[in-house]
């Protein structure tokens, strides 16, 4: 029993250290480029309830809250992307109250203090909340980018996802690093 606990502690510390250093790289410009592409691609692996869209042709709205870490690169990616017959538009939000207008909402690490505020707004809404901060999934996040080795991967919280009424494709789940 003691041994188990000991190993768990050691493993946790190791994991913690690894995560800290990884999150540092996660914010680099190159990593952000990849995250932008992933963010847009998520739109084709997630199924929203019908009432989430005004009509069958309505675009998927990808929102970025607060300070934009992607820049214009994400707009470029979105323009040429097609998610199951819908176009993708990128919107930037400053006010947490407006974030419910998005289908996918990215909350950068710098805006994590306002996480609770945003989740309160989005409660009962079908928005895929994506971030790249530690403990993101424990704070109602659904997909959180992580650094695995030198690669960008992501973890998915199926619990939070179900809470939001979203259906994530098994394919996306199959490439997730961890699923909670």
């Amino acid at each position, binding site marked *: 029993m003691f041994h188990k606990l000991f190993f768990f502690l050691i493993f946790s510390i190791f994991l913690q250290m690894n995560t800290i250093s990884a999150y540092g790289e996660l914010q680099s410009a190159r990593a952000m480029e*990849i995250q932008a592409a*992933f963010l847009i*691609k998520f739109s084709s*692996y997630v199924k929203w309830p019908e009432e989430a869209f005004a009509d069958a042709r309505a675009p998927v709205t990808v929102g970025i809250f607060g300070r934009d870490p992607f820049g214009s690169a994400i707009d470029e990616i979105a323009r040429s992307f*097609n998610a199951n017959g819908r176009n993708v538009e990128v919107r930037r939000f400053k006010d947490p109250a407006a974030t419910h207008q998005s289908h996918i909402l990215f909350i950068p690490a710098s805006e994590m203090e306002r996480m609770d505020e945003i989740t309160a707004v989005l409660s009962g809404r079908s928005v895929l909340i994506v971030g790249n901060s530690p403990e993101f999934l424990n704070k109602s996040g659904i997909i959180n980018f992580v650094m695995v080795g030198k*690669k*960008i*991967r*992501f973890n998915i919280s199926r619990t939070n996802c179900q809470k939001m009424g979203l259906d994530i*494709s098994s*394919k*996306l789940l*199959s*490439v997730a690093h961890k699923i909670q």
Partner: protein
Amino acid sequence: MTFPQFRDLSINIKLTVIIIFSCLLVSLMASGFFIGREIISFRRSVVEDLSGLARVIGINCTAPLEFMDSETADEILSSLSARPHILQALLFTADGTKFSQYQKPSLSLENAQELRDHFKETKLQLLGEAHHFHKNHMALSVFVGKPGKTIGTLVLQADQSGFHAILTRLIYVVSGIFTTTLLLAALLSSLLNRVVSRPILELAETMERVRREKNYSIRAIKNSNDELGVLVKGINSTLDDIEKRDEQLLVAKKTAEDANLAKSQFLAQMSHEIRTPMNGILGIASLLLNTSINEKQYQFVHTIRRSGESLLNLINDILDFSKIEAGKLELELIQFDLREIAEETVDLLSERANEKNLNLACFIHSAVPAHFEGDPGRLRQILMNLLGNAIKFTNRGEVVLNIFLKKIEGNSAYLRFEVSDTGIGINKGKQKEIFCAFSQADGSTTRQFGGTGLGLAICHQLVSLMDGEIGVESVEGQGATFWFTTVFAISSFNESLSDRPHQPIALQKFDAVILVAEDNPTNQIVAQGLLEHLGCRIDLADNGKVAATITAKKNYDLIFMDCQMPVMDGYEATKQIRKAENLAGTGPTPIIALTAHAMKGDRERCLAVGMNDFITKPFNEQQLAIILSKWLPDTCIKNLPGPPTKILKNRATQSTQVHIDESVLNSFRQLQQPGKSDIRTELVSVYLRSSPGIMQSLQQAAEKNDSEKLWQAAHTLKSSSASLGARRLSSLCHELEIMGRETRVDDPLQRVLEIESEFKTVADELERILSGV
């Protein structure tokens, strides 16, 4: 050895080859098609399977590719280990970089290298939707991603050994099909043989048999009503026709042969029928000539006899010819003396030559053997014909018979006879024709010279029978030389054939009692007259029965027996006479058959019943005399004084040129009237008295070279010499006369000297002949 060409092979083999070949071809094509289709469909299914798999894998790899999750991609690809035939899987991103790879764990290094090499070779192609078959494996590539949005390429490389296994199985199947096809083809061809080739072969065999056996009654068997049946029917009906025609031809041939036989028999019968009255005519004429008649009557009777003899010759020719035509002429094989035959023939013709003032001579080469075995009668006939013709067609000059020996081989002597004349000759174009029947050099010849035109045809046939050849060499207007060759066996029997002194028969008289059995009154008169003229005493019997009765009572020196008589014929009578003689123990009386049949076989029949000899009607006095001298005992023969036999012997042995032809002198005896002085003596003494003067004028004319006087003197001497039979002298004078007339005498003195010397010889001989009188 050369391979036989396909067209020369038996139809049987041809059919088999064709059937097997076409069956194999069809099965080859079918198998090829089948294998091709199998391969194509197999490959298609392989491609479909593989591309289906690739698509599933591709779809599964979409997310890993999009989210660059190579681990997941590796995981997905590693699931291919459940498919053992997948050797390698490669996942590329859209920009061509390798994203993930799977390799079959058991893959050997070489195989892996091979796959890599192969991939490198086909990389460009594989960067699209494509597949490619390699030796041992195939590669297939598919796009990953949604249509229009390619995010990568998946390449699968799969093992092809399954395909090879299938290919091997297919080859086994096809071999099986091939073997079955061959067996079926063999079966089929044997069936076809039964239906098609066997009837053809049978037909061919039948035709071959017909050809080989020349048997046109063989028929082919018809088994079907197809074209072969038609062929068989056609051939059979052709054979029917041939057989029918053969039968008709046989009948026609038989008819023709029968007709020919009937013709020959008719001719023989007619000749026989004509001979009997001819016997009367000739016999009575001869008898008449021996009676006291005046010169005019003598001329008339002589003409009758001459005409009768000509007629008889014609009949003999026709009879011979019909016998030859009927194939009934057979040669005898008896011993003979060639010199005797030649001289007899020349003797017989000398009178005719003399009449025309011709020189007739006979030369027998010294190498020619004396005695032969053969048919002297036929040889004499040929010589008579040729010499007779020569005399007939020669108006002046000479006729010479030459006999040469060509060679001796074993016991056979090859002789060549040549009869040369100085007559009219024969046109070159006609020289072949004249040996054909009824042909003379010219139709006008017959009118001018008479004759049947059968003589040379008969000679030709006779010479052929004697294994010889006959021919002529002639220049028209300059005489002709007829020649023929014969082969005779040399007789080893060297004894002289006639032991009696060779005497002119006409000089013999016979003191004998003779019975003549003859039913025909004319012939009775003839036989009686001729025999009485020969000095015999004659009894007559009307038939064989009378003859047999008379001979039982009276002894005769000789019997002449006609063969065909009423009541009892000559054959039966002879048998009875011989029987009676046996009983009485008296010596056999010579019985001579008198027959009008000139056919061979008669002689044998006569001899078989016991007759001794035979004589053919019509006969003349000379023939009778020969028979009498042959069969009567010597005591019955009275030799009349005649010319010394020495001269005759001389001639017979030397066979040189004759100075004096004593037959000419003898002919004067015919004119001798009983009780008058000898005509010959008178003629000879006149000739001997007058000739020296002529010789003198010849000499003078020669000295003066006076052609006119020369030919006149020569002419005179020629005529007087010829009439006494001094032939050589006569012909020498004749030559001089001709040259004198043409005033082209070269060396007249030499010629006169020749004539002088010949005259001296002639004078000596004449004196010798006369001294014998």
